[in-house]
């Protein structure tokens, strides 16, 4: 069953094309990671999904409901952690969750929901006094109310410490096991890699890749990363490695050359360096991380 279905989705702000004919489907039960550099259009996509913004062209539906014309029907089944939100003035954490419970017309205990996100002891404090990480937990608590069929999380780990991020991942796994679909936008690639079944990479408003992480790895020729420690690294050394057939990228990091390449190209790269008069002190191979693949797909832009 298709949960999110975007067809030819475009959004233009004046001269700026924030989204350019994006086609994307997310199936039920998936945990989908949405990646992209700053300004790629991730938030615009989510704003359209939540009905905050009207697309200039194309359509987006969630559970078969048009996001703009049937926004209430969409949000009845969706829990949202929006980016750039602020808590309500004058309400405590507990009152926020109570508001979500009444708004969704469900029967839940606010204390249980707050315990789940680690905010039970701070429930009585005004939410405007919360730290950034606590606000993220509170918004997650509100999103979890009513056991939504789809969780839309826009940069959910912003402001969370490592423990908080780990707790968030645990909650997301629990939600996936419950059967919820998760749409997860983040620029923290480790988070995405840890929880997502499939990812989409957005750049300059265009969806340039959509696949499983293994699929993306295959798409860049097996996705092996060769880390070479030579006696020196300069432009010529990098060029020598970059010229080898099967090498997609060659960058210098901490005195080593990191080359994303096919399995067959690894030995060729070492031979090329030797022929160029460079002594190889050490080398090892790694599986390409999501970050490596992201750099590969986006041509060097960082998430």
């Amino acid at each position, binding site marked *: 069953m298709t949960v999110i279905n975007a067809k030819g989705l475009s959004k233009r*702000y004046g001269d700026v094309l924030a989204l350019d004919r994006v086609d994307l489907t997310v199936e039920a039960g998936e945990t989908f990671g949405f990646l992209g550099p700053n300004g790629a259009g991730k*938030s*615009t996509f989510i*704003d359209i999904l*939540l*009905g*905050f*913004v*009207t697309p200039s062209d194309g359509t987006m539906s969630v559970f078969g409901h048009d996001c703009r014309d049937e*926004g*209430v029907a969409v*949000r*009845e089944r969706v829990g*949202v952690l*929006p980016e*750039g*939100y*602020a*808590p*309500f*003035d*004058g*309400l405590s954490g507990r009152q926020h969750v109570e*508001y*979500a419970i*009444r*708004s*969704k*017309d469900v029967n839940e205990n606010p204390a249980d929901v707050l315990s789940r996100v680690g905010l039970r002891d701070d429930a009585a404090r005004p939410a405007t006094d919360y730290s950034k990480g606590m606000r993220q937990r509170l*918004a997650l608590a*509100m*999103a979890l109310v009513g056991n939504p069929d789809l969780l839309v999380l826009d940069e959910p780990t912003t402001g969370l410490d490592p423990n908080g991020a780990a707790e968030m991942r645990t909650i997301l796994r629990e939600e996936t096991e419950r059967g919820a679909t998760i749409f997860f936008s983040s620029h923290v690639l480790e988070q995405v890699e840890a929880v997502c079944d499939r990812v989409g990479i957005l750049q300059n408003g265009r969806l340039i890749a959509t696949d499983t992480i293994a699929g993306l790895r295959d798409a860049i020729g097996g996705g092996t990363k060769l880390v070479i420690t030579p006696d020196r690294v300069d432009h010529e050394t990098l060029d020598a490695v970059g010229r080898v057939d099967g090498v997609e990228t060659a960058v210098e990091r901490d005195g080593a050359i990191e080359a994303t390449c096919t399995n067959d190209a690894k030995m060729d790269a070492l031979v090329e360096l030797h022929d160029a008069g460079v002594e190889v002190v050490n080398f090892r191979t790694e599986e390409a991380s999501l970050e490596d693949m992201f750099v590969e797909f986006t041509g060097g832009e960082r998430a």
Partner: protein
Amino acid sequence: MTWRVIARRDWRLLLDARLPKVALVGLIGVVSMAAYVYPVVGTAPITTSRFGAFVGGWLGGVLPPIGVLFGYGAIAREHESGALRLALSMPHGRPTLVLGRFVGRAGALGSAIVVGMGIAGVLVVYPFGTLQPLRFLALVLLSVAHGALWVGIGVAASALVATNRRALVLGVVALFVLVIVWDAVTAGVEAGLVAAGTTDGPLRTAVRIGSQLDPGSAFETLVTALAASDRGAGAWYDGPTLALPVFVGWLLGPLSVAMLRFEWRDLA
């Protein structure tokens, strides 16, 4: 009926804040004071209906600023802070959100009006006044509606712009134009016509009608009509025939326009 959830939250927030509480207590004080003074300075017979005509001017001066004060932050404040994104992530439609905010705020103001008028009714009737229950009830409802009308204008200003400051400016401009400028301009034009010797005819009628089209004039005309024991022989546009639709139009019009505009606005 999620507007009730929104209205209840807004009601509570409004009554927790100091300035609105002071405004509401002040409003009750003004209405009570008018009722205390009325039997002393008013002419016989002292009745709750005639009290309406007496207090109408007081309410016409007090309710517009309080209404705009209550309304202007309804949407724009949260739009500016980002809390609107949280509010709209719940399964509420945008018109429902505006309606809930309006009902919560107008309800708080209306409750204060009811309390003030209740105290006023006792002060007018005791010891020598007369209670005319149906007309007094109509006066109370009309006053509540007048308060709601100005809250609606404030909420409309709030839903039409993106920042709290702009909403305040828009609300104050609306207040200034409708309460001060409108009367001054129509009075000036009418005086000009008289000075030019135009004492009758369609132009003069148009100006007279124009002078009745602001919310304050409509309210005072309706309050006066409630107090009158017989219908005068004035022109149709000086009575409830014009004032009632004008009043209802101001009560529903700005809010409806703002709800429509807000529903289709990008909130990025």
